[in-house]
C-alpha cells in the first residue's frame, strides 16, 4: 500500500470517527436537555404549594375524599385504642361513604387539606422542624359521635358483625373489636349510640404529627422516609443544575467537533435545538398517553382491590399534577424549537449582512465571480 493510499484511508477513518462522535454528542445533548426539561417541569410543580391548593379544588378532593378519611379516622381511633377490627377492614367503600356523610363535612375536610399543604411546605422550608406542625381538630367529629348522628354513623359499621350465639352471656364493646357480637334481640340503635359515645371518648381532641409519633403510629422508619422526602426538592434542583451544565458542555463539544470556522460553528447551532424540542414533544406525548391509559392499571397493581375509590382519587390527583407539569414541559419544548428558529434567522440575517458588506467593500471580486461576470 502506497503512502498516499494509507493517508487517504486514515483520513476517511478519521472522518467517520468524527461523524460518529458528532452524532453521539448530539444524541447525548438531546437526551440530557429533554431530561432536564422534564426535571424542571416536575420540580416546579412538586415544589409549588399553590399547585396543591389548586389540586384540592380541581380534583374536588374535599367532595370525594370523605369516605376514605372516615375510614382512616375510624381505623386510627381503633388503632390508638389498641383494638383490632377484622369486621371493619373488610367493609366496602359504600359503607364508609355512608359513615362519612354523617361524620365528615366537606368544609371541615377542605380546610384541613389546605392547612396540611401549608404545614408540609413550612416544614420543608424549615430545617429545624422535625415534623410538620399540622393539627387536625377532631372536636367536630367527637360532637357528631356524641349526638344521635353518631349512632346512625356507627350502624353501617356493624353490618359484618355476627349475631351472638345463644350461649353467649357477655358482649364486649370496644374490646378487641367494636362489638364482639350482636344480641339477637335488643335495641340496635341504642347499642350503636353506646359504641359511638365510647368511640368519641377514645378519640383525642386533636391529632398532630407529634401525637402520632408519640403513640408509635409514626415510627422511626417513617421519620427516615420523611427526612428523605425533605431532600427530594434539593435533589431535583441539583439534578436540574447538573443537566443544564452538562448540556452546555455537550453543546460546546458538539460545536467544536462539527466545525472548523466560526461561521460553521454558528451554522451548527439550530439543529440540536430542533432535535431537542422535537424529542421533548415526543416524550411529552408518550407520558400523556401513559397518564391517560396506563396510570390506573399501574396504580391498581400497588393498591389493594377494595381501595378502588382511593385508586381513582390518586389517579385523578396525579393526572392534575401531570397536566400542570405537562404545560411547563410543552412551554419548554416550544422554547427550544423557537430558540432554534431564532438562531436560524440570526444566521440568515448575518449572512445577508456580511454578503452585502462584502459587495459594498472595495475588495476585488473573487475569480469565480469575475468569470461569471465576463459571460453575462
Amino acid at each position: 500500500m502506497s503512502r498516499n493510499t494509507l493517508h487517504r484511508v486514515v483520513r476517511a477513518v478519521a472522518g467517520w470517527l468524527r461523524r460518529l462522535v458528532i452524532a453521539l454528542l448530539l444524541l447525548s445533548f438531546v437526551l440530557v436537555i429533554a431530561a432536564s426539561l422534564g426535571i424542571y417541569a416536575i420540580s416546579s410543580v412538586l415544589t409549588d404549594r399553590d399547585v396543591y391548593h389548586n389540586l384540592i379544588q380541581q380534583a374536588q378532593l374535599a367532595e370525594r375524599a370523605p369516605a376514605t378519611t372516615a375510614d382512616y379516622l375510624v381505623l386510627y381511633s381503633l388503632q390508638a385504642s389498641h383494638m383490632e377490627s377484622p369486621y371493619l377492614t373488610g367493609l366496602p367503600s359504600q359503607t364508609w361513604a355512608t359513615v362519612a356523610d354523617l361524620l365528615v363535612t366537606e368544609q371541615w375536610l377542605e380546610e384541613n387539606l389546605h392547612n396540611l399543604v401549608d404545614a408540609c411546605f413550612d416544614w420543608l422550608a424549615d430545617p429545624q422542624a422535625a415534623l410538620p406542625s399540622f393539627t387536625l381538630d377532631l372536636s367536630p367529629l367527637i360532637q357528631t359521635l356524641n349526638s344521635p348522628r353518631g349512632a346512625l354513623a356507627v350502624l353501617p359499621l356493624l353490618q359484618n358483625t355476627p349475631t351472638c350465639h345463644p350461649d353467649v352471656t357477655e358482649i364486649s364493646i370496644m374490646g378487641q373489636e367494636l362489638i364482639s357480637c350482636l344480641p339477637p334481640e335488643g335495641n340496635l340503635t341504642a347499642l350503636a349510640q353506646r359504641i359511638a359515645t365510647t368511640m368519641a371518648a377514645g378519640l383525642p381532641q386533636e391529632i398532630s404529627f407529634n401525637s402520632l409519633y408519640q403513640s408509635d403510629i409514626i415510627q422511626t422508619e417513617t421519620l427516615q422516609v420523611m427526612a428523605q422526602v425533605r431532600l427530594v426538592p434539593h435533589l431535583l434542583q441539583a439534578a436540574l443544575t447538573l443537566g443544564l451544565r452538562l448540556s452546555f458542555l455537550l453543546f460546546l463539544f458538539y460545536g467544536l467537533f462539527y466545525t472548523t470556522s466560526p461561521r460553521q460553528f454558528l451554522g451548527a447551532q439550530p439543529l440540536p435545538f430542533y432535535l431537542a424540542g422535537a424529542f421533548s414533544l415526543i416524550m411529552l406525548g408518550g407520558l400523556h398517553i401513559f397518564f391517560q391509559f396506563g396510570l390506573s392499571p399501574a396504580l391498581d397493581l400497588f393498591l389493594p382491590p377494595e381501595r378502588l375509590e382511593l385508586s381513582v382519587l390518586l389517579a385523578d390527583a396525579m393526572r392534575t399534577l401531570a397536566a400542570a407539569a405537562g404545560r411547563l414541559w410543552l412551554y419548554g419544548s416550544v422554547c427550544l424549537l423557537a430558540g432554534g428558529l431564532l438562531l436560524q434567522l440570526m444566521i440568515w440575517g448575518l449572512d445577508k449582512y456580511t454578503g452585502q458588506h462584502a459587495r459594498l467593500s472595495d475588495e476585488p471580486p473573487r475569480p469565480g465571480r469575475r468569470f461569471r461576470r465576463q459571460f453575462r
Partner: protein
Amino acid sequence: LDKDPTDMKLKLFLHRHWLTLLSALLVLALAYWTYSAYQELSLIWQAMQ
C-alpha cells in the same frame, strides 16, 4: 532583528491559535462547573441513602 525569536514564536502561535485556546479554556471551565454540580448531586444522593 534584535527581537527574541522565542517571543516571536509565541506571539505567532497565539495569533494563529487564539480561538482554539479560548475554546479549550471554555471547555475546561465548563467541565469543572459540571463536575461541581455532579459532586453536589452526589452528596445529596448519599444523604438520602
